[in-house]
């Protein structure tokens, strides 16, 4: 079973392929060695016999034939390996001396070495040999043949062949073993990863793929997958958190509704009493519905990709209108609301949404500022465009809470009990993000919230209606390099 799996494994097939390639390479290499060695040996033989032949033939003495015969005799004397050949033939091809039976047919008499088949004739008898031989016609018209058995070449071939046989087999085995080991190792790691992945799929989101810190491709893939799992885990937890928060926030008024209705049914004596309890239940239901509406609204702002109403927006107007809208509320509460507009740079955006964002900030500020305090709404020029600031003299937001306040339903404990749904800042964050603006929460004498806008480019301002979607909103720099728009927390 395990072996079958191994054979099926891609790694093992890969190992086989590598082994085959290794064998092929070795064969080619050996072939090349063989060829080169043969060439070398042959060249050596050739130069030796050519030199000898020319030496014998080149210096004709007075009585040429005697000297030649003596030289042949010298040549053939000490030859225990029976590799030397020499012969002298008359002009008609008849044998005069030497151990070559007959003038080899086809041997050109050009004084160069050629491969030749000839018959050796000596004390041991006749023997056909493939030799390297030189034929040369002497000035006396005799023909001199000097040769040497090419068995050295064959020996070389034998040695190379043996080495090949001895070396290749172990090499193949080694390659296969190495391949098997590598694939087994990889298989084991993949098995481990697969087991972990199945556990993760089964819902154990805290599990991670095993990493061996070898920085090989598998590890790097594992690292990426693990990072992805981190993200997913965080998202799932956040989502679950939101779900729980929603359930909790909605359950509270619903519980009251239930109690109120029950009381009305059991205890109301008159129609008036029943109506009163009914009204109370309705108010609580409205609160639940308001939560649902606000959530849907944030989801809509978060996800809707096509802004319907993009236009050039004058923030000055928005800030002043919000000021006008909330002035009576602040006054009733004994809070001073100051509005200052010091920047007329237009931005591109959805006017209603931007208004809603500013209104929400002012709403929050007025709500959290105790009587006698002040809320300041200002519009001032910043680095990339106007900055809308809403500062109050309320309790402020703890640095540790600042990231959390833009989360849905988050309310610092001290604000619990104050009217309103804990969704205000999440909504503002969603609106800012949609516009590519930044939401910065910091501390002044109370809480300071900035919406850092980006000024509209003149070109964009002219073609607002053709803008495809929110990320491009008035962006003076490519979208990819836009800093993370929300949850940016300024240094104190």
């Amino acid at each position, binding site marked *: 079973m395990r072996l079958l799996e191994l054979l099926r494994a891609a790694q093992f097939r890969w190992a086989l392929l590598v082994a085959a390639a290794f064998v092929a390479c070795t064969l080619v290499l050996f072939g090349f060695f063989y060829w080169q060695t043969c060439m070398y040996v042959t060249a050596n033989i050739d130069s030796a016999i050519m030199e000898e032949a020319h030496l014998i033939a080149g210096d004709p003495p007075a009585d040429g034939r005697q000297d030649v015969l003596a030289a042949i005799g010298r040549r053939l004397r000490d030859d225990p390996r029976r590799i030397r050949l020499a012969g002298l033939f008359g002009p008609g091809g008849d044998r005069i001396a030497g151990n070559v039976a007959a003038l080899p047919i086809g041997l050109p008499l050009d004084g160069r070495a050629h491969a030749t088949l000839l018959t050796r004739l000596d004390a041991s008898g006749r023997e056909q040999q493939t030799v390297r031989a030189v034929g040369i016609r002497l000035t006396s018209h005799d023909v001199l043949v000097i040769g040497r058995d090419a068995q050295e070449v064959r020996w070389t071939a034998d040695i190379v062949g043996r080495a090949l046989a001895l070396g290749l087999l172990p090499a193949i085995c080694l390659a296969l073993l190495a391949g098997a080991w590598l694939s087994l190792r990889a298989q084991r790691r993949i098995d481990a990863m697969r087991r972990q992945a199945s556990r993760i799929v089964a819902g154990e989101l805290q599990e991670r793929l095993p990493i061996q810190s070898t920085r090989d491709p598998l590890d790097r893939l594992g690292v990426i997958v693990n990072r992805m799992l981190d993200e997913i885990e965080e998202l799932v937890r956040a989502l679950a958190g939101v779900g729980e928060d929603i359930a909790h926030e909605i359950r509270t008024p619903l519980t009251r509704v239930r109690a109120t209705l029950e009381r009305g049914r059991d205890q109301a004596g008159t129609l008036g009493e029943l109506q009163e309890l009914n009204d109370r239940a309705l108010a609580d239901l409205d609160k639940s519905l308001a939560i649902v509406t606000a959530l849907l609204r944030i989801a809509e702002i978060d996800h809707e990709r096509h802004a319907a109403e993009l236009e050039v927006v004058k923030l000055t107007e928005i800030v002043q209108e919000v000021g006008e809208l909330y002035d009576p509320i602040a006054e009733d509460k004994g809070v001073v609301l100051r509005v200052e507009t010091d920047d007329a740079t237009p931005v591109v955006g959805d006017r*209603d949404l931007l208004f809603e964002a500013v209104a929400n900030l002012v709403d929050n500020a007025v709500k959290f500022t105790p009587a006698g305090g002040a809320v300041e709404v200002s519009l001032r020029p910043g680095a990339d465009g106007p900055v809308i600031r809403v500062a109050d003299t309320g309790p402020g937001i703890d640095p540790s809470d600042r990231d959390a306040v833009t989360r849905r339903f988050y309310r610092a404990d001290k604000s619990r009990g104050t009217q309103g749904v804990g969704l205000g800042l999440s909504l503002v964050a969603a609106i800012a993000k949609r516009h590519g603006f930044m939401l910065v929460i910091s501390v002044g004498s109370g809480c300071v919230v900035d919406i850092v806008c980006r000024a509209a480019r003149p070109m964009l301002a002219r073609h607002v209606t053709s803008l495809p979607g929110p990320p491009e909103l008035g962006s003076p720099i490519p979208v990819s390099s836009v800093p993370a728009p929300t949850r940016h927390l300024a240094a104190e």
Partner: protein
Amino acid sequence: MPATLPREDDRATEGLLARILVIEDDDGTAEEVMTALGDRGYRPERVASGTDGLDRARQGDWDLLVLDRMLPGMDGLAVLEALRGDNIMTPVLVLSALGAVNDRIRGLRAGGDDYLAKPFALGELVARLEALLRRPATLRETILRVGPLELDLLARLAHRGHRELELLPREFQLLEYMMRREGQVLTRAMLLEQVWKYRFVPQTNLVDVHIGRLRRKLDGPDETPMILSVRGVGFMLHAPA
């Protein structure tokens, strides 16, 4: 001062037994809407699908259509576009479970006269329907009068009797809107949309505070209050008897 919604009797005397066609597939919602409309003295009829709705709307002589956005058979917006294509200009209030702002815009662009997102309070629905049924006839008047109240739109002057009211621009607009709809219940959302042109749900009782200010300027200490609070729904301007 709380008051209840005007009931059937008041309406009957005004001869406003309007015929309303409700095109809504959800039985529960339809039943509540039908009951609420019947209670107010209207004669509502209901159909449950888009195709039937279009047929009925084409046949009948309706004063008003209540049209759900998502319908089986034919989408609510398609029904609306078909009607407007036939030059049937009956006022239409579009209902939708899609809370989306853009959906609202699409609804209004397709020819709807008002748009209400689900879930809604019945009071809100009725108030909006009545606003549609009783649209101000002429907008050409330059002086509006309700009881002792007089609003000079050209001179931007407001008087209650001989007393001049010092109104901020927005208060002037608010009063003008309410005077044009004298005796009608106006919800907070309607006021915010129509007077301030805002379409968001404020977390605080913004409208109440602004109405409160206007009321303090309008109703002197020993004068009969003219701005009534309609419990759970909104406000109403009426002339003292």
